């Protein structure tokens, strides 16, 4: 007989508490349970009676409570679910720990079995998929998460990856290739990959550096720029990867 349908949220919580206590101390006493749940001992006793009727706990001696094998199974399930929810709020959504716990407690009893299943699979995906970690990190770094605006993506490091996100450009940002001779700009992003990007970084083309376009070659390519006291030429394609805020 599944104890599912007969377990109320409150009972599930009790079971969870007993599980934690038993894990740490071998047995749980009524007063430990009361303390852990921050209720009066008097409220604990009827709940224990109910759990005992369901065959999930037993009294070892008058005061000490232990889980039956069935109880163990149930408790584990409840406990795991709680952990999952806490993780969801804490690690995935990035909610602060105490609030995460509270939210987990609030939500864990109202999820359907399918909902639980799906959520578990989401975690598995984020753990196993090579892109999963990156996705999660990206989410955490996104200024949107930290209360920023959708257009305020200057701090996103993924502007520098293979999949250059055009929409991440600030409205005032232009590529060095678009500057006319004599125009200056302060570098905001250095996109590109591989040897080319590394060479640009090595040469000192970094965010916050001011560059000035000196001239273009015939046909507009390559481009001659000045920065930090020396002068460089960049191919148009390389210059397209350097975004500046026009000055």
């Amino acid at each position, binding site marked *: 007989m599944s104890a599912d349908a007969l377990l109320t949220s409150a009972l599930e919580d009790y079971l969870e508490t007993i599980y934690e206590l038993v894990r740490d101390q071998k047995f749980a006493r009524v007063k430990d349970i009361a303390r852990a749940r921050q209720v009066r001992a008097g409220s604990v006793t009827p709940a224990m009676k109910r759990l005992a009727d369901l065959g999930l706990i037993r009294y070892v001696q008058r005061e000490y409570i232990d889980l039956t094998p069935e109880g163990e199974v149930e408790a584990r399930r409840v406990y795991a679910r709680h952990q999952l929810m806490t993780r969801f709020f804490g690690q995935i959504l990035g909610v602060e720990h105490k609030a995460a716990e509270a939210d987990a407690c609030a939500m864990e009893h109202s999820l359907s079995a399918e909902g639980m299943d799906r959520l578990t699979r989401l975690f598995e995906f984020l753990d196993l998929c090579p892109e999963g970690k990156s996705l999660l990190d990206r989410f955490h770094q996104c200024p949107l998460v930290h209360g920023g605006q959708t257009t305020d993506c200057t701090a996103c490091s993924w502007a520098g990856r293979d999949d250059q996100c055009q929409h991440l450009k600030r409205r005032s940002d232009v590529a060095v290739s678009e500057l006319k001779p004599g125009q200056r700009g302060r570098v905001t992003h250095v996109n590109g990959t*591989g*040897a080319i990007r590394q060479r640009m*970084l*090595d*040469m000192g083309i970094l*965010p916050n550096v001011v560059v000035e376009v000196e001239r273009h070659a015939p046909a507009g390519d390559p481009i001659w720029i000045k920065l*930090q006291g*020396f002068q460089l*030429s*960049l191919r148009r394609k390389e210059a397209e990867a350097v975004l500046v805020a026009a000055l």
Partner: protein
Amino acid sequence: MAESSVTTRVALAGNPNSGKTSLFNALTGAHQHVGNYAGVTVEKRQGRYSHNGRRHDVLDLPGTYSLSSYTPEERIAQDELLDRGHDVVVVVVDSTALKRSLVLLAQLMQTGATCVLCLNMADEARHAGQQLDRQLLSKLLGVPVVETVGHRGQGVDRLREAIASVAHRQPGPSRVVLGERLDRAIAAVGLHLVGSEIPDEHHPWVATKLLLADPLLEERVRRGPGGEDAIGEAARQRRSIEAEVARDIALYVMECYYGFVDGLLRQTLVQPPREDARALSDRIDSVLAHRALGLPVFLAAMYAIFWLTFTAGEIPMRWIESGFAALGSSVAGLWPVGSSSPLRSLLVDGVIAGVGGVVVFLPNIVLLFMCLALLEDTGYMARAAFLMDRVMHRFGLHGRSFVPMITGFGCSVPGIMATRTLEHEHDRLATMLVLPLMSCGARLTIWMLLIPAFFAPRWRAPVLWSIYLAGIVLALLLALLLRRTVLKGEDAPFVMELPPYRLPTARAVVVKMTERSWLYLRKAGTVILAISILMWLITSYPKAPGGGAASLERSVAGRVGRAMEPALGPLGLDWKVGTALIGAFAAKEVFVAQLGIIYSVGETDTDRGAERLRQKLRRDYTPLSAMSLMLFLLIATPCMATLAVTRRESGSWRWALLQIGGLTLLGYGVALVFYQTGRLLVG
């Protein structure tokens, strides 16, 4: 004073354009040797000097902007530093571009190398008003700081002193501070490297590279104990850092390096250089690099260079010619008149004629190298590359390929040698391999013979022009093909520094000029000598009575020519041309001489002799077959000097053989298609 048995091994590192090589020359003088790193086109320059009785071996590392692992130059520099334990690493820095160069110093210090900071081009920095507290800098970094002016040889003794003072010091803790977060991460990764085969002093550098996910160093580390752990830790730290600082690790690390350097300079740079220090140079650039004017000015300059080398070189050329002729006669005179002694023939017709034929170009070559050295040292070469890159890049080449290729119109040998200015291997090789397609001066003697023989006066200039054009077009197309197939690879960064114009010192130009001319001469002395003898052998033996044309026919060369005939037929050619072609391998001018012999014309370099030869040729060939021959000669037959120089500059026989094989096939194909289509159209 007897030399101590301990040798101090010194390496010179630094950015390209920092004057490193001049400094190397000043340190080592004549005691140097230039080769290649095995299998790559990167030059290996080694030398030595003596100081206080101790021998110092100096290695001039390839110029690099940082110790990353992307280009062959950087990888070689890194390998040398990590594997071959140099006692001292001198970091040569352009004093006017301190920030960037000090980043390289920081990276080198992380490898645990015992460094000396050499502030080169100190005169320019002083002239720009820059003032640096050298003593404080030295104290902060823990390395000696020396000022030098490499191309004038100033400060070199001080440099030697500084090197000796640190030479056998124990490596101390790195003074490079990259910020709390990064330093912590480096230490965490470094922990896992303890007990691996990697020496302790390398750990900061290796740890940094692992954080950067450098595949070469990951490979290296993986092989040893604790490697996987170190790599794993590096990955963890990397993720953590990237999440914290919201940028990718490569950018963050570079910012940390610059942060360190900025901190150093804030304390030690008492007076920064004036903003307008480059004013004159910039004004010159407004003309020379002008969007519309730049190119015409450059082409005019190249034309002037050619004009100079060929006219000014004319007179010394005549001297050398008569000199060798005189040598030939006096050696011949050692035997009685009419003697058919093989030794006499070997010496006079083989050695003296063969070697002389190449040495006679020496004045042109020397002048050409001088002009190239001037172009390079003034900084104008970089402007030329800037102007030409768009076109060159279209065909898989580099802006810097332009000057070597133009040089090839004079002679392929200096042109190929000039490809050293190209920083990246694929660009260098592609340029080198297609260079012989630039119709050289020697081929011009053939065009001058054949074109008037077969074409009416009003067609002569267009035909000549079309040959040159064909060469250029084929060179570009072939380069494109190479870059898509054999030399496929990521485009090397073009990001190229444009140094201020500098007045080259006579000393630097002369050193460059003589070094390269000497190389050219040595080719004459070795490879060409050997091949001249070989050529003489196969064209002289076996003999037929009466000598002359019949003799040539009977010789090995003649027989090979005959054997080639079936292959040459579809090109509209015959064995006579085939035999002459064999001689052309030695040097193009020999082709004309050999034809002369076959047609029993004798002196081909007089106008009358040439005309007689033309008449005979007209009997045997048509304009169509003549054109086919010229195409074949343009494409298929790089001379042996070219082959020898390609082998040397590319570092292996593979490329030289690919060059000759590929070009021969291409030449054959083009001539074939041309001739057969011509036959179809004209009949």
